[in-house]
């Protein structure tokens, strides 16, 4: 049972500042982590690789949530930033012959630098105007992906060598899963901690009231730029892992659609919430899969209009997202909080 202490027994500020407040929560999170690590042993390869894509999406969603959800700067470039990370990581591994473990963080830093450049308009622009400026980042980077043949392989794309430790090569579904999930868990931990320390709070302050944030001594431009570069760093890491996952990267994947997909993830999951980023990533990765299975089954039952049903998929996807925005405007993370509050008091309503 999720019975919390009936009264506040915390005796130090250290106890009071814990993220996982009760033993029940600590045990369940621990059990969940164990489950994550034994998952590939129990599940099929297909499920394992689906989980890998969810892990990548979680990292990307955390990134865009930092800049958009926490700092309030709408970014439409997350997809392109992932591309920068993927191509940079591949480049460092192929040309500079660096091992993946150095190339991935370097790719993250390179993406952070690119993100910072495209974050510069945030000095003057806000809201939708800034969104349009970041849209430019998306298109400029996409153009570069296609035309910088030496680095990106142009429109053909380029190979992404698998990571190695000694003689062990990460090329199976399971090893890629373990790599991705470990990085994703670290990203979740890092973000959670960041948001309860100085710079994370400054991000939220810039979002909630930039004028009074400035009066309180928060340097607005510095924190806007910082949020863009941290966000791009996450995207760079996610892009590198995407490269590992597919083994081959091309500009086609890092489009505006991908950017909007990430924006949708955090809106559906919950803006300014780590848990929301995870929920959103899971939801937006699984929904198309379920729809494919569903429409596939329907098409078999009604073979004559099968092609019609298959093309309904995108429409249904859109409708589900819209319904979510109407009935769950604060995101899945908010619904989760309500459910938790309900069970805390169950069976009494007050």
């Amino acid at each position: 049972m999720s019975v919390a202490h009936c009264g506040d027994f915390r005796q130090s500020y250290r106890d009071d500042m814990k993220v996982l407040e009760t033993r029940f929560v600590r045990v369940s999170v621990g059990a969940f982590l164990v489950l994550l690590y034994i998952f590939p042993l129990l599940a099929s390869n297909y499920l394992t690789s689906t989980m890998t894509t969810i892990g990548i999406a979680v990292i990307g969603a955390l990134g865009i949530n930092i800049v958009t959800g926490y700092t309030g700067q709408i970014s439409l470039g997350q997809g392109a930033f992932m591309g920068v990370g993927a191509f940079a990581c591949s480049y460092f591994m192929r040309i500079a012959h660096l091992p993946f473990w150095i190339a991935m963080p370097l790719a993250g830093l390179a993406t952070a630098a690119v993100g910072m450049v495209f974050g510069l308009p945030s000095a003057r622009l806000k809201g939708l105007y800034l969104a349009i400026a970041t849209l430019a980042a998306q298109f400029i980077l996409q153009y570069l992906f296609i035309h910088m043949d030496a680095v990106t392989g142009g429109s053909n794309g380029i190979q992404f060598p698998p990571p190695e430790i000694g003689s062990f090569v990460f090329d199976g579904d399971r090893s890629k899963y373990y790599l991705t999930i470990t990085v994703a868990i670290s990203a979740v931990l890092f973000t959670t901690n960041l948001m309860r320390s100085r710079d994370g709070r400054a991000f939220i302050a810039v979002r909630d009231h930039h004028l009074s944030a400035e009066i309180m001594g928060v340097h607005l431009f510095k924190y806007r730029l910082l949020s863009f570069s941290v966000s791009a760093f996450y995207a760079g890491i996610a892009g590198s892992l995407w490269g590992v996952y597919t083994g081959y990267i091309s500009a086609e994947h890092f489009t505006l659609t991908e950017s909007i997909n990430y924006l949708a993830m955090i809106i559906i999951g919950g803006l300014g919430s780590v848990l929301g980023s995870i929920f959103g990533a899971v939801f937006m990765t699984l929904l198309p899969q379920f729809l494919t299975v569903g429409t596939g089954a329907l098409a078999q039952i009604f073979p004559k209009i099968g092609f019609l049903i298959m093309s309904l998929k995108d429409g249904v996807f859109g409708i589900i997202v819209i319904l979510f925005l109407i009935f769950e405007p604060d995101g899945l993370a908010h619904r989760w909080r309500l459910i938790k509050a309900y069970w805390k008091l169950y069976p009494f309503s007050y």
Partner: protein
Amino acid sequence: MTSSLERPVQLAVENISLRFGGVMALGGLGFSVRNGEIFSIIGPNGAGKTSMLNCISGRYQPQRGTISFDGHDITHRPPAARARLGIARTFQNIALFKGMSVLDNLLIGRHIHLKSGLLRGGFYFGPCQKEEIEHRRIVEDIVDFLEIEHIRKRIVGTLAYGLQKRVELARALALNPKLILLDEPMAGMNLEETEDMVRFILDINQERGITVILVEHDMGVVMDISDHLVVLNFGEKIGEGSPDEVQADPEVIKAYLGGEDSVFLGR
């Protein structure tokens, strides 16, 4: 009260002019605020009181004149730099961080005193945690002082107006300022809340030794607690001095306090 005249000047405002296009908000305004006093700026609506505060806190840049604080010329410094020198303020319309808890709002007040950057914050355990606990203790002192213990974990946007005003004062105090600018702290409050707020302002001034610049329309309060005041009308100074001097000034009575109406002090 006269003793405050002998104290050193903390904030000197000289010949400040501020224009918005063709509108002159402030025209050659000057006054000085001494260490540890309660200094009030009064005047009719649109007189330029809040504009003056905005010039001091750095939100507006005056076209002419200088403002110096503790010997530093701060006229052209950005707001964040002024916060570092020890100037804090509250706003007429509440300007809290609505999505954050009361504690987090106060911890933003500690922002300039915190040192843990991005990486240390992300790893958290170790020096960052130690620092957070240390500053939590400082913030809890302010929570105690302003009697907001019961709401410390509440999200600010869900609090009642009077409490939000108090949290805003707490946030300004968390900065550990030498000078605090209060823009209508009593606006929209009932009698009890006003009395609480006056008590807090006096305590801030006397116990913590913080200089207070107060903009307020409640004349009863202003005349009771101010050491000095300056009266503005249409961006110009029309009176200055102790509360008694100002109340006797015919110019001030004509522009703001009202002629025969001696009950303006009544409360």
